[in-house]
């Protein structure tokens, strides 16, 4: 058993942290957020140059053959910087669909473009009534020659407005909540009948609602078995949960660090407020929650590529539930200990809190995953 990074992994972390420290401080981030796209093309290119886009793909496909550990490292660093670029949507979600479900031809066409930063992806799965259930799919896919015609509406497609291609879940057969009959289809952003409404999310990132009005896709746009896409979708989302957990650890680390700094410099009653025991214990509670969440993030990361569906899914339920409840405690306490300053848009801590909060409501909040784990049975074999 070994919790240490390899030398290469340490270098990856250090160089990404350096790049972000240099180019992505809080003020620069604010300026980037104020641009119409809401993220920085320069940073995107810098990420691509570092090889971040190519990381998880196999070398045969044009990637770097990285493991979920590399993804964890990148996501934690991006979380630390509150990066706005669509890395998660492109590489983890879209890239996950391609990596785990794409045909050789599809991968050969798209992975090199992703690797060089030329192609951005998104995954459209959430619907108005689906909440967190991946099997709840009303969007229809009707067979049309060799291809399909897609109709329906997808909501809150993360980074949807910057994606060149969108993976859409749609129902080929069966009832709205059936596990079978769900396919994953690839649609270009300019496809006829596809309208996209982009907007900012609460954490300063971007998302879009996507309306599909008889959008025609060819046979080359079908990912895997169009009648049995759910297992693939679940694997992709499990990987995404591990990655989001890592981002959350980066966010929590900053929430905790900023709070400790503040406790040491802010003076009231003639002394640093960090001298007060009640605030010290709050800071310790944050620390304990964060370390416990980190432990389960490591666990989720090691399980992310496991072919054992049952064990992998349990690990993700545990990790995401823990991230949700730890993140809430760490975030709320950080704001509380900062007092009024924590409430201001001017100061960083509130922005970390907002990202932390939005991570909880993506891909299942703490209650959702707790319930799901409870239904499945024990975490211990």
């Amino acid at each position, binding site marked *: 058993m070994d919790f240490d990074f390899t030398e290469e992994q340490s270098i990856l972390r250090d160089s990404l942290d350096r790049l972000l420290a240099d180019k992505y401080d809080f003020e620069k981030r604010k300026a980037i957020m104020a641009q119409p796209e809401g993220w920085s093309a320069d940073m995107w290119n810098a990420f691509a140059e570092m090889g971040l886009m190519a990381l998880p793909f196999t070398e045969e496909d044009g990637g770097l053959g990285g493991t979920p550990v590399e993804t964890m490292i990148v996501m934690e660093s991006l979380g630390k910087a509150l990066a706005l670029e669509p890395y998660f949507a492109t590489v983890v979600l879209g890239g996950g669909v391609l990596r785990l479900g794409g045909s050789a031809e599809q991968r050969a066409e798209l992975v090199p473009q992703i690797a060089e930063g030329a192609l951005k992806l998104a995954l459209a799965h959430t619907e108005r009534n689906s909440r967190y259930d991946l099997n709840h799919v009303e969007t229809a896919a009707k067979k049309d020659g060799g291809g399909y015609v897609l109709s329906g509406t997808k909501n809150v497609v993360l980074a949807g407005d910057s994606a060149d291609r969108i993976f859409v879940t749609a129902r080929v057969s069966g009832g709205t909540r059936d596990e079978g009959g769900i396919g994953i289809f690839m649609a270009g952003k300019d496809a006829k009948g596809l309208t996209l409404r982009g907007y900012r999310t609460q954490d300063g990132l971007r998302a879009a609602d996507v309306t599909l009005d008889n959008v025609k896709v060819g046979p080359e746009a079908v990912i895997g078995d169009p009648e049995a896409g759910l297992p693939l979708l679940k694997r992709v989302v499990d990987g995404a949960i591990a990655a989001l957990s890592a981002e959350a650890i980066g966010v929590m680390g900053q929430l905790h660090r900023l709070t*400790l700094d503040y406790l*040491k410099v802010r003076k009231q009653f003639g002394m640093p407020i960090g001298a007060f025991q009640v605030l010290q214990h709050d800071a310790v509670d944050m620390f304990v929650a964060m370390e416990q969440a980190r*432990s389960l993030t490591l666990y989720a990361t090691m399980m992310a590529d496991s072919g054992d569906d049952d064990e992998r899914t349990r690990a993700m339920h545990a990790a995401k*539930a823990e991230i949700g409840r730890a993140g809430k405690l760490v975030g709320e306490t950080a704001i509380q200990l900062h007092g009024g300053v924590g409430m201001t848009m001017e100061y960083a801590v509130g922005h970390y809190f907002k990202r932390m909060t939005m991570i909880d409501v993506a891909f299942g909040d703490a209650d959702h995953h707790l319930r799901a784990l409870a239904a499945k049975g024990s975490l211990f074999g």
Partner: protein
Amino acid sequence: MELRFTPEEIAFRDKVRTFFKENVPDDIRDKMAVGEHIEKDDFVRWTRILDDKGWAVAHWPEEYGGTGWDPMRQYIFLEELQRYPAPTPLPFGVNMVGPVIYTFGNEAQKKQFLPRIANLDDWWCQGFSEPGAGSDLASLKTRAVRQGDHYIVNGQKTWTTLAQYADWIFCLVRTDTEVKKQEGISFVLIDMNTPGIEVRPIVTIDGGREINEVFLTDVKVPAENLVGEENKGWDYAKFLLGNERTNIARVGMSKQRIARVRDLASKEMSGGRPLLEDERFREKLASIEIDLKALELTQLRVVAADAKRGNTGRPDPASSILKIKGSEIQQGITHLLMQVMGPHALPYHEDIEGSNEPPIEPDYAASAAPGYFNYRKVSIYGGSNEIQKNIIAKAVLGL
């Protein structure tokens, strides 16, 4: 990064499992499995089996009878021991005074005491807390005055666990009243058969008799029973309290108890179906399991870090949370177990000597409520959780 055990570690785990299966007396395992009280004789029998195998003081240096296992093997050993379940070796000798003696004691003390600790020939108890010295331990008042080649000890110790069985007590005593309170404390070993020692039981809220008051009146202690230097006892006490971290989280024990909760909840009925099918109950169980899984990984992070850089004696930042989370989880499980028994947790099962009354059914519910009551202690002893938080705030967070 690799979170699986190596093939060698798995082989080691299997070896340990097989040994427990073949050597833990069934009656002791059965008592452990249902949370029944473990008697002195059970401890002695089991410790001697372990000592014959050379595993009674597994984590000690090899020259004093240890195994030479690396920290990961030490962890696996304890995890499997707790999970089997079998009693963990009595901590007062093996984890507390033993390491103090081999680290700070003289050769004569090592020779006299260490082998007898390993074989449980001597039952040790801990004389730290006093009525006026709890969390503020350094304010202790028990006085030791040097008279020729003896110390004369007067004072009172309290919360002394299993002192009723003890052959020896290790005590913090005040040897200098003129200096800062931490600088006038010494660490002495006292034979419980010395005249002037009186042990009085304290009955705890679960009805148990594990703790005691120990009164010391003009107790004559040979000067050679001083450990290390006079007035350096506080350093040894801090060492003692700080060096226990492979076992403090008790992950293996909590796993075994969660398995028991599941087993009982699948038999106890609620709303016409097994309680285990109740959603609310399952969520509470899942919630504790998530905490426990996280703690297991946190514990393993500490163990792996120790293995990598050798045990420096300096706690890893993550290790400081083991006591807090470990105790919360243990307490949570005892509460869940009591809830499983529902109204059957109510009867107080009196152990009346010579009585022929049949036990109140179901007899396995007897320990449910007492177990919950008793385990309130785990967030109090060994430095209360609030004291742990003070330590983390200072040592880890720099506040």
